[in-house]
């Protein structure tokens, strides 16, 4: 089936899916903290657009509430709070050294391919748009994990974590037209609390270790030496 023969709304959703995946790659490669936070907000914005689009196209208007939550949390509150923390902890100018950047990017590409491979059995039974969206949301989740693994700064790890959450919400919205309302609200509450707790942790880590470098968190070992 050709992309062009799909309804316009589905074409738009697929384009947005591609853009969300693209922002995931941007997050992975970005080394400046403030730009990283802005890119994360951009990904949240794309997720918001997708949710609004699905809400209108599918006629499930309760999704608009979920879209509003995304807009409030992922586009404004969390980036704003992270930015505030970065300013208050005075780490705005810090540039994170990402070792082996090109290798990591190739790894992310491989993860995307892997996601399509995993989604293959699902693809057989569904529409073009959903089979792509499941694969892409899985790729966004895996790239978020890759980001947590490869980065050394606590702030960057949190952004990786939140970007995983974006991938999950995208899967819920695009593949299944949103979860039941009570679940959406619960997930949003969890994300909100998590964001606040992460902020608290930044200050604790900073005051105990003198930096937000998680490499210094190395006192506890699996076996004692």
């Amino acid at each position, binding site marked *: 089936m050709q992309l062009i023969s799909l309804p316009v709304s589905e074409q738009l959703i697929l384009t947005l899916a591609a853009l969300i995946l693209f922002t995931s790659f941007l997050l992975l490669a970005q080394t400046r903290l403030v730009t990283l936070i802005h890119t994360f907000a951009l990904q949240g914005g794309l997720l918001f657009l997708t949710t609004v689009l699905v809400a209108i196209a599918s006629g499930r208007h309760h999704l608009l509430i979920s879209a509003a939550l995304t807009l409030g949390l992922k586009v404004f509150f969390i980036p704003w709070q992270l930015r505030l923390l970065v300013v208050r902890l005075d780490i705005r100018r810090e540039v994170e050294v990402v070792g082996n950047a090109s290798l990591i990017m190739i790894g992310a590409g491989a993860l995307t391919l892997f996601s399509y491979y995993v989604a293959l059995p699902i693809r*057989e039974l569904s529409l073009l748009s959903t089979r792509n969206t499941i694969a892409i949301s899985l790729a966004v989740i895996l790239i978020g994990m890759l980001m947590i693994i490869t980065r050394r700064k606590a702030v960057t790890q949190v952004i990786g974590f939140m970007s995983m959450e974006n991938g999950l919400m995208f899967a819920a919205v695009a*593949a299944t037209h949103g979860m039941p309302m009570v*679940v959406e609200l*619960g997930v949003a509450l969890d994300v909100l*609390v*998590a964001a606040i707790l992460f902020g608290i942790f930044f200050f604790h880590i900073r005051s105990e270790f003198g930096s937000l470098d998680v490499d210094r*968190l190395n006192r506890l070992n*699996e076996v*004692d030496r």
Partner: protein
Amino acid sequence: MNALYLTLLLPLFGTMLFAVAGHRRSAGTINMFICVATFATSLWLAINVFNQGTLISDGKLFYIDGFNVYLILLNAFVGMTTSVFSGPYMAHEVEIGRVDDGRMRLYYSMYQGFLFTMLVALSTNNLGLLWVAVEGATLATVLLVSLYRTPESIEAGWKYFLICGVGIAQALFGTVLIYFAADKVLPGSDETLLWTVLNAHAMELEPTVLILAFVFLLVGYGTKVGLVPLHNWLPDAHSEGPTPMSAILSGLLLNVALYAIVRFKMIIDPALGTDLPGKIMMGFGLVTFATAGLLLHRQKDVKRMFSYSSIEHMGLMTFAFGIGGSLATFGGLLHMIVHSLTKSAIFVTVGHAAHVAKTQSIDKIRGLISTQPTVGWGLLLGTVAIAGFPPFGVFTSEFLLFSATMKSWPWLVITLLIGLAVAFAGLFRHVQPMVFGEAPPGQQPVEANMWPVIIHLVLILWLGISVPEVLARWIDQATIMIVGEGLL
């Protein structure tokens, strides 16, 4: 249903109350009273279920059957006995200046918050809400792990937060996939994510989606169960947080995560028509069991050592539910009870032992039995029980598990026996000098409330000698729900 609402509202009320008044001297006692009341209402709920059978709330949001009600009761019970211990323990921590008023408010508020999320996770019918509650439990306990604000505890808290957060995200993806599969069968319905609805339509769900979903769910909730290789957070979180937290984390949280996996398996198994999920669980369980037993030997912190023992037992339970069949499932359910009771008793004793020796380091805790015989005997008997010696209950459940393994996978019994021996050796090489060694000069007994330990040990002994008829019937009911056939 009123009993259930009360059971849920009491801890919620406690969370709010302690957020403002948790630093008062009376907070420990009030915490205990709330926990006793919660236990009483959960007992009332259990009697209701016993008399009327399965209950479902008006909005279908909560669903109580024989399987989850016994875990609710167990949760409320361990929460109650731990709260008896927690009051004086935390008062002692305040006295020696390890925590201040603000952190005491946080502690008591989150103690109740944790119990609340656990009870919601167990009683909800909505699989999405189950996820929300389990994630909520992480959020409630993460600041408690770093309560002492030492570098180690902050590291443990960060690891706990990040590893469990990432892990549990996989479980949400699995839940979305389940919803996706169900949405094909029941398009546009609001009830698609309800466990009862999914269970009724299990046969119609698309198998390829479900097996993918199961892998994500097992990895996600498995992180919380502490399955190797996703267990890294568990010993850290248990060893660095306050001891009452270790007791309820080990006794309750791990069980609830395993409960979630079993609930999903109940839907996925009939739809697939193969025992692939069971085999995956068996593999994970066996690896966990063996690895944790070995790691026991190399520990220097007493709470870390016992948390590896928790990992080992969770591996054994995962293995049991993986085998399936009535005998193994019965054994697994019984093991959940006896492990929770024994492990929380051990952590309570260890808390007192650490106060006696003023350290958690195994090398420095010596001569407990001469300094304070109750603590020494408590630790010794607890360890004997958890290592699976008769006449304690762990022996009974392990015996059932091994018989089930003997029936279906005879060769694996050898692995299990070796694992058990290794774990036993690991525990006793550390515990023996702690209990019988020569006490350092000037070691003084502390004020210790051993009632929680005594009650738990007596219960385990009772379960080891004869499982009461009522409980056996009850577990059998749960077994019938999970695998379709009973044992009795």
